[in-house]
């Protein structure tokens, strides 16, 4: 197939989104599902037929010699990421129909999900940085709209605003990075930019200077940190849980948070040439550990999963930082599968119990056996239990990290233990012990159950794809060796899992998080980064805004008003002077005449 078909991937759900705003619930749901399904089919067809880098572009607009193109660039990995997006989007569209059965604003919801899908697919296939930016930002606004969708939740509007603004702060850097790259390369086309970045300074006219490249790479990283929830711009992600659960699955699995990682992989030569990878490495190390620790003490099941996303994204950026973009994308795919599974399965639990709080769950494994097994597979994949999907990708990341240095490797191992700790805690609290609610939970309806079951398949088996040479070739991953190198992660896993298991055995039905002691508050509040941001950024900006408004009204406008008042006062006093009584006026006239005569005489003499 021609690479131009890549543009159809976002175009189809976009058209469905536009149409879905104007129809009733049933048609809107059908349009949403159809859009995702067609995109998925197209992505599969492209994945099957395009296995080398292919490009196609058309002129979009010319801004004073800077050409912006409308085009696609399909690399070997591109179409596979698109397939993952399509699968998750389709699962979310199907799952949403029963999950939001009572929602009277379903058409805009389905439309926004379609728009979200279209935006992510645009980021995936875009062959031009400006086009990529379009998808990037539209995704941000869709996340804003969808997180704020739930009208009964008082926290939703604030969480929605936060999600958009935190990512937008990062996007200041993203736009500037694109501006630097585009102006230095003379084109926004990704292939031109990559060529210019590879050429380097002094090697022909199109090369990008080292300083410019570094600046651009670091600026782009700000945007990546915002979208992919890297420290210190990760704070929006846990709050984004205010959105409906299918939206959490969409944002956390294959879209939005994946976009940042994907863009770094796509523009990898820029980051490599710009020496920005160490920065990314530090961000990754902090993020993965912070996310895992924060996840250990949450009570809201969705917040546990949210922090686990933060942590897993740290693994992906860590892989990028050690120069293994293919491995990062591999983990992106496996994570997309098991995180979508985890969220949708958690949604089934929430749907059944009626609350997000794990304190109110417990003993659900008999009532919801299918959900139990699906969630178990998802958690197993998350912690990296062999042979589930997460094991292979995480192992590849740790192997790559081990080759490059101790920091990311050791933090990665520590994070494995933390991951096992919080995953097993979640598993125990939700499914074991005695039921802690009065309601009678039940398995979800088929439209919710089937997507979960379908997602369980890649969560379990996708990792085995590393044994397919063609797959490894696409991602540029080396052959797998099962040797002593897999032992450290497995040992870390065992330590984390056994610790929490022992705690649970000692005091059954007690949240193991209580044993964290004073650390619990720090973990539950994620080290108060939120509060710090509020104090350092939000409040000063607000105070500044108030001061500027006051200054604008009293000083700038005050000067204008004062000019007006001054002119009027001057006019008034002149008028008063002209209204004086006859004797004084006569005196004034006489005095004037004398002055005039004097002046004439003096001047006359002078002349």
């Amino acid at each position, binding site marked *: 197939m021609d690479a131009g078909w890549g543009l159809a991937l976002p175009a189809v759900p976009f058209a469905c989104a536009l149409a879905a705003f104007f129809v009733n619930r049933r048609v809107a749901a059908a349009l949403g599902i159809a859009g995702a399904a067609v995109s998925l089919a197209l992505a599969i067809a492209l994945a099957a037929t395009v296995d080398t880098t292919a490009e196609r572009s058309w002129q979009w607009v010319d*801004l*004073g010699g800077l050409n912006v193109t409308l085009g696609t660039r399909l690399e070997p990995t591109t179409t596979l990421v698109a397939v993952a997006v399509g699968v998750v989007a389709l699962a979310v569209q199907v799952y949403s129909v029963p999950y939001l059965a009572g929602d009277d604003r379903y058409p805009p919801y389905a439309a926004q999900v379609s728009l979200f899908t279209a935006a992510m697919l645009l980021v995936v296939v875009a062959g031009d940085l400006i086009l990529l930016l379009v998808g990037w930002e*539209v995704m941000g606004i869709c996340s804003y709209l969808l997180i704020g969708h739930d009208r009964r939740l008082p926290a939703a509007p604030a969480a929605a605003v936060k999600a958009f*603004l935190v990512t937008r702060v990062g996007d*200041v850097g993203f*736009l500037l990075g694109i*501006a630097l790259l585009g102006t230095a390369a003379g084109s926004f086309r990704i292939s031109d930019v990559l060529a210019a970045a590879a050429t380097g300074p002094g090697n022909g006219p199109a090369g990008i200077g080292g300083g410019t490249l570094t600046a651009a790479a670091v600026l782009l990283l700000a945007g990546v940190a915002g979208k992919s929830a890297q420290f210190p711009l990760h704070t929006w992600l846990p709050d984004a849980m205010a959105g409906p659960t299918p939206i959490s699955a969409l944002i956390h699995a294959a879209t939005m948070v994946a976009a940042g990682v994907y863009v770094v992989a796509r523009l990898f030569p820029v980051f490599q040439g710009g020496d920005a990878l160490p920065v990314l490495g530090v961000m990754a190390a902090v993020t993965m550990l912070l996310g895992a620790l924060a996840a250990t003490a949450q009570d809201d099941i969705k917040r546990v999963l949210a922090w686990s996303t933060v942590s897993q994204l740290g693994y992906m950026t860590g892989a990028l930082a050690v120069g293994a973009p293919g491995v990062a994308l591999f983990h992106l795919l496996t994570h997309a599968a098991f995180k979508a599974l985890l969220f949708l399965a958690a949604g089934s639990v929430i749907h059944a119990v009626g609350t997000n709080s794990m304190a109110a769950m417990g003993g659900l494994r008999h009532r919801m056996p299918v959900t139990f097994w699906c969630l178990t597979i998802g958690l197993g994949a998350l912690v990296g239990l062999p042979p589930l999907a997460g094991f292979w990708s995480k192992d590849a990341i740790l192997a790559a990290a081990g080759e490059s240095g101790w920091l990311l490797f050791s933090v990665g191992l520590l994070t494995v233990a933390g991951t096992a700790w919080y995953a097993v805690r979640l598993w125990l609290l939700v499914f074991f012990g005695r039921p802690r609610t009065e309601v009678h939970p039940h398995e979800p309806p088929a439209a919710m159950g089937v997507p979960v079951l379908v997602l369980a398949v890649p969560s379990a088996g996708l990792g085995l794809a590393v044994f397919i040479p063609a797959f490894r070739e696409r991602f540029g991953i080396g052959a797998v060796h099962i040797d002593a190198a897999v032992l450290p992660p497995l040992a870390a896993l065992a330590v984390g899992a056994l610790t929490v298991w022992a705690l649970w055995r000692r005091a059954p039905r007690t949240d193991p998080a209580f044993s964290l002691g004073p650390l619990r508050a720090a973990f539950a509040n994620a080290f108060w980064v939120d509060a710090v941001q509020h104090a350092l950024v939000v409040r000063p900006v607000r105070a500044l805004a108030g001061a500027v*408004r006051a200054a604008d009204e009293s000083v700038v406008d005050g000067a*204008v008003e004062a000019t007006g008042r001054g002119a009027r006062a001057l006019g008034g006093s002149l008028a008063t002077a002209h209204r004086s009584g006859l004797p004084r006026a006569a005196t004034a006239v006489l005095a004037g005449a004398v002055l005039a005569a004097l002046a004439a005489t003096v001047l006359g003499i002078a002349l």
Partner: protein
Amino acid sequence: MSALLVVVLALPAAGAMVAALLPGERAGRVAGTVAAALAFVASLLLWFDRSAGGTGVIRPWHEVDVAWAPALDLRFHLGVDGISYPLVVLTTLLTLLCCAYTVGHVPAGGRGSALVALLLVVEVGMLGTFLALDLVLFFVFFEVVLLPMYAVIAGWGGAGRRAAARKFALYTLFGSVLLLVGVFTVVASAGTADIVALTGGAALPRGTQHAAFALFAVAFAVKSPLWPLHTWLPAAHTQAPTVGSVILAGVLLKMGTYGLIRVAVGVAPEGARWAAPVLGTLAVAAIIVGALVCLAQSEIKRLIAYSSVGHMGFVLLGVATLTATGIQAALIGNVAHGILTGLLFFLAGAVKDRFGTGDLAALGGLRERMPGLSGLLGYAAIGSLGLPGLAGFWGEAFAVIAAVRRGGPLWLTLGVIAAVGGALTAAYFLRLLRRVTHGPASPVVAGAVCGPIARLEVAAWSPLVVLALAVGLVPALVLGMASEPVRAVAEWVAR
């Protein structure tokens, strides 16, 4: 085809006469609207038969050049090219929408037909400003706008309308005086008032260029408005009736930025180069100050008015770079601001009409009560904050890119600060949406007796909704025809 230029001006003028003189009040409104519709169609027809005439920097497709007052060597010289055409169409479209809106909805204060007549007179002035290719003629049209707009605000405005209208008239009159002095400085020095001849012809002496550019720049900065000469704007917008605000923000401000590109930069390029750093710095200050004031603003129309200060800051930053990229960004930013802010003022008017207040503290939960209106407000705000895919993006992003491309410490810094301003813009628009649309319905919103969105409102808003998306997806709609003339201007300045 050249006669069409005169027709485009004559139709609204005739419409204004008819609307004012017809005995029936409603008939007057309808007649005026018909004239506005015809003017819109005529302006669309200008698109055809585009063969660039002449050899200079400005090459109009259609041109009328006749003697006006031969004794004074004044000429009636009109022309349209790729720079002015999008603004001409924007003017005729927005005037048509405002007249149509007035057919069904007359604000309190006076006869609706008189309002329509005044809007049409304003249209004549605005169109003339965009079409004029003679400095004196340009000045005349520039001034034609002033008094009818004053009357619109003073006659149909809110409670503080008189003071606001007075401030508007006096402040912009102050700008006009400088414009007049600038025009005569140029004419006296060059011996001609012909803009085509002045742009790309024999250059004026350096001192004259500096003086002329300074005078023009301040005059147009008042109109645009550029911080710190903006304070007439919030008062005028807050008090003006909805249609007045739409015209004011949608087109009137563009006279300033258009004048800056066509007259100030075109006639005094060396002066422009000399003043560009100051202009750029003030533009960026406008972006930041406008955004911060919006962040602390408590009234919806005042907020949108201040947002114009920030948006025009991006436009002026684009112009100040004096590059083809920057001027293109300014042109599309101009048009996008006209579309989106016009829409925002329509929607803010709809909110104020229904709930009787624009106080952000009193409003809230609009989406509970009127999901459609709240969705549209969200759309307009999102477009206005520069979301890619909608019209506002191109002007904002490429003003930044043009500054980065210009290079050097000053312009890089300006580009970075402007980009930060983009994030602040998002912050205040989302704050607006959160206050007005989200949360539970406030007592004011829940208690008001309000109808659904009327058919006439849909008719007035939907062209703007569609255009915001269309220009966002196909920016060539605006920029396609502008690239040649802009390139010519940029080369002329760089020479």
